[in-house]
């Protein structure tokens, strides 16, 4: 086993981790602010990937096709997120947790079949533009250039979210709403509008992630992709701690790297290992690595 293989593997793990970060950060934000665990998050991520494919398919004769399709798909998903929030999620704010989980779980089933109806079951493949196709070399070690694109998108979103939450007025309101929504409401800030905004932002990031994921390999519904990915995103959020952006980032990188390296040494055990890590964290430190302890 030589160094270049290890480096290449850790890059692939990092790229996988950043993809999980894009999904898990929206999930964690929505849960932190609205207290709703969105099972359908990865389904919407997949819808984002399919929309990216459709836009690219329309423009495939142009070199800029993929670069335009990715933001377009993310915007479409933001619109879908808005509709879902206003029509469905808003009705269950005051309900109990299991009912909220069931509603989003029902969305997983519905979206899965809607994807089948709209795009069919065969795999979709996007041809990458030359800029991000093929390897680039650092010190003679080859890196998949698309992985570098995924990783940089992940870091941009992480920095963007951090800036939004820490430096802008709206970010301050969102963080205050995590802490005490009664107080925020008492100050005359309309809570439903904050909720809608947060949900749309979360789904926008998920849609962006899906669109960016689309050209990595083929897009497919097989292997229960939607559920498999959302469960991994849960693991990330649990490991990092609900409501902590840094925790989500670290958790994503841990899960991505664990996955990448166990594929190398113990292929069948990759997911098993992630679930064991998650279970152990939940048992000894349920608030995660970077979260703050709450009343259990």
């Amino acid at each position, binding site marked *: 086993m030589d160094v270049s293989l290890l480096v290449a593997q850790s890059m692939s793990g990092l790229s996988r981790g950043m993809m999980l970060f894009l999904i898990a950060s929206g999930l964690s934000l929505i849960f932190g602010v609205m207290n709703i665990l969105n099972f359908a998050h990865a389904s919407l991520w997949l819808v984002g990937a399919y929309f990216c494919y459709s836009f690219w398919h329309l423009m495939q004769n142009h070199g800029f096709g993929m670069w335009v399709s990715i933001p377009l798909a993310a915007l479409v998903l933001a619109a879908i997120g808005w509709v879902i929030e206003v029509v469905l999620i808003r009705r269950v704010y005051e309900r109990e947790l299991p009912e909220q989980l069931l509603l989003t779980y029902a969305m997983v089933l519905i979206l899965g079949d809607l994807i089948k109806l709209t795009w069919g079951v065969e795999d979709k493949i996007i041809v990458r533009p030359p800029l991000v196709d093929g390897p680039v070399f650092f010190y003679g070690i080859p890196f998949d250039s698309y992985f570098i694109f995924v990783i940089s998108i992940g870091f941009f979103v992480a920095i963007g979210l951090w800036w939004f939450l820490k430096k802008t007025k709206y970010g301050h309101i969102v963080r205050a709403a995590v802490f005490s929504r009664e107080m925020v409401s008492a100050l005359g800030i309309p809570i439903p509008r904050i909720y809608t905004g947060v949900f749309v932002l979360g789904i926008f990031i998920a849609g962006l992630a899906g669109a960016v994921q689309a050209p990595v390999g083929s897009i497919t519904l097989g292997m229960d992709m939607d559920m498999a990915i959302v469960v991994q995103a849960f693991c990330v959020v649990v490991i990092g701690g609900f409501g902590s952006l840094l925790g989500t980032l670290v958790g994503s990188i841990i899960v991505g790297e664990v996955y990448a390296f166990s594929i190398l040494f113990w292929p*069948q055990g990759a997911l098993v290992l992630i679930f064991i890590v998650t279970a152990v964290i939940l048992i000894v430190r349920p608030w995660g690595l970077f979260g703050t302890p709450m009343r259990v």
Partner: protein
Amino acid sequence: MEILTKRYWWLGLVFIGALVLPLVVGEFWVHVAIEILILGLFAVSFNMIFGNMGQLSFGHAAYYGVGAYATGLLMVRASVPLPICLAASMVAAGICALILGYFCVRLTGIYFAILTLAFGQLLYYIIFQWYSFTRGDDGLQGIIPPGALFSATYYYYFTLFIVTGALIAMWYVNESPFGYTMRAIRENADRTRFIGINVRRYMLINFVVAGMFAGRNWHQSGIPVFMTVIGGPLGFFGPMIGSIIYTFLMAFVTGFTEYWPLTIGLVIMFVVLFLPGGVLGLVEQKMKVFRSRDLETRGDRSAETGSS
């Protein structure tokens, strides 16, 4: 006891109906009925955690799987007779629930749901990848039931016998002081703790009992959840009613479309948004309206019918 027999006289009718069912319907519907019974028992046992404890367990299919695999492996590999296999599968599922429950009852709400989900997935991957022992995704072939059970009718009566026995046992657990303690924990864990009850121990026992009854009988973890929600989580028989509706709907819908998840997803969405108590909740609400009208006209029978 008198009130009990008065309120639940219809159960006798249902049981008699279940007894004569194979005599009046064709073999296909007998198979549907077997499915209803088995999945219904699974859903009722799931509801011991959901309804009694107020916690959503996503790993319940794990016990169902452990129970099924324990029976299957014992029969295929050790040729153990069926009744012993069934008892062993209950013990296996119970032990499994004891180990997982020990950790799960430390958490509540969202964390409970995620931990049970993680454990469920863990067991799923272990069973599907431990090829030499469980034959992985090929499944266990060659489970031969004793001769008499080959006939759908006999198998139906066998299932009915087992399911009825398990339901009666669970009913007694539910109506015992233990069952009331569990519901007290659901309503307010802190207050229950104050009167000197070890909440975690009770939750663990409940978890194990529920796991054992699920083990009696690999499906998607969603099924018992759907059945319970459709039928109504607050009544003991809600999940059974849910099982009847779910299985019939599935037999009907899959006849002409492959988009079953879309259908059940829309049904669940409708129930969550507009029918929070499930079908049983709706029926009880209507009965309450009916009864209160009854009370208004007669005026003096509040002692007997007032509580529900």
